């Protein structure tokens, strides 16, 4: 069995309203060193698959189809055997 950890971020060119609100709040709380904040999604998917290559294929597939919207989002993922 594999666990996929998927990191989805907004594309660079897309304004991130959540990130900029959080950055401002952090600043207001006194964290003046904060330069930028980007907020995305973190997904953990457990896959009952024996083979790493197969798991990788499936995860990529799911991301392209459903989990990620390529118009505004990018993603990376890691696979851990569990």
């Amino acid at each position, binding site marked *: 069995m594999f666990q996929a950890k998927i990191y989805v971020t907004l594309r660079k*060119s*897309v*304004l991130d*309203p*959540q990130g900029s*609100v959080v950055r401002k709040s952090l600043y207001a709380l006194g964290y003046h060193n904060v330069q930028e904040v980007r907020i995305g999604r973190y997904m953990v998917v457990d896959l009952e698959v024996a083979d790493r290559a197969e798991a990788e294929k499936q995860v990529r597939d799911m991301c392209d189809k*459903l989990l990620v*919207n390529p*118009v505004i989002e990018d993603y990376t993922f890691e696979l851990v055997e569990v």
Partner: protein
Amino acid sequence: MKFGVVVFPGSNCDADCLHAIQTVTGQPVEYIWHKSGSVDGFDCIVLPGGFSYGDYLRCGAVARFSPVMKPVIEFARRGGMVMGICNGFQILTEAGLLPGALHRNKNLQFLCHDTYLRVENNTTPFTCRASEGQVIKIPIAHGEGNYYADPETLRQLEENKQVIFRYCDPHGEVTPEANPNGSLNNIAGICNEQGNVLGMMPHPERCAEAVLGNTDGQLIFQSLLDFWQRRCG
């Protein structure tokens, strides 16, 4: 002319759309269940507002895989009239029937209030009863209506006159203050290249009866009927 209103799990403006279409056009209108495999017999299909699948993951992302979307997409490709309102608009972008994407409102809050829209193109089935530049008042109610498309797509949209509605002030000026959610170019509604698929964030069905204090939304449903009956467009 027969209208169909798709019911996804979590749609909540389905009954409202049905009611408004019935009241304004007097034409037959039926619900289409999301598991339905066909949309035969319908002349115009409405994807209503609401929170299909709770808006979980991304608005419209899950709904676009509903069985009904296959025939809806085919219907659209054949030139059938499809209109997505609010969540319906989000589903249409996720399904690739319309370009771009809708993400979180700039201020991160859900917003429910009247907005003014300028009709940018009155040659579509959805706006043929309007005059170009006409200002109408239609309410919004969404948390993710912030329209985004990459610069090239945006340029094409503008060039092809696919931007149908823009947020404006009561006098028709397109200003940053009139933009409730941060949409690029104040975009409130767009259509596809062929002009038969419309997506808009504001809710025309909510202002189509005098008792609700505003009838500007009638314009869109009347346009559809008149276009169908070749009385305009």
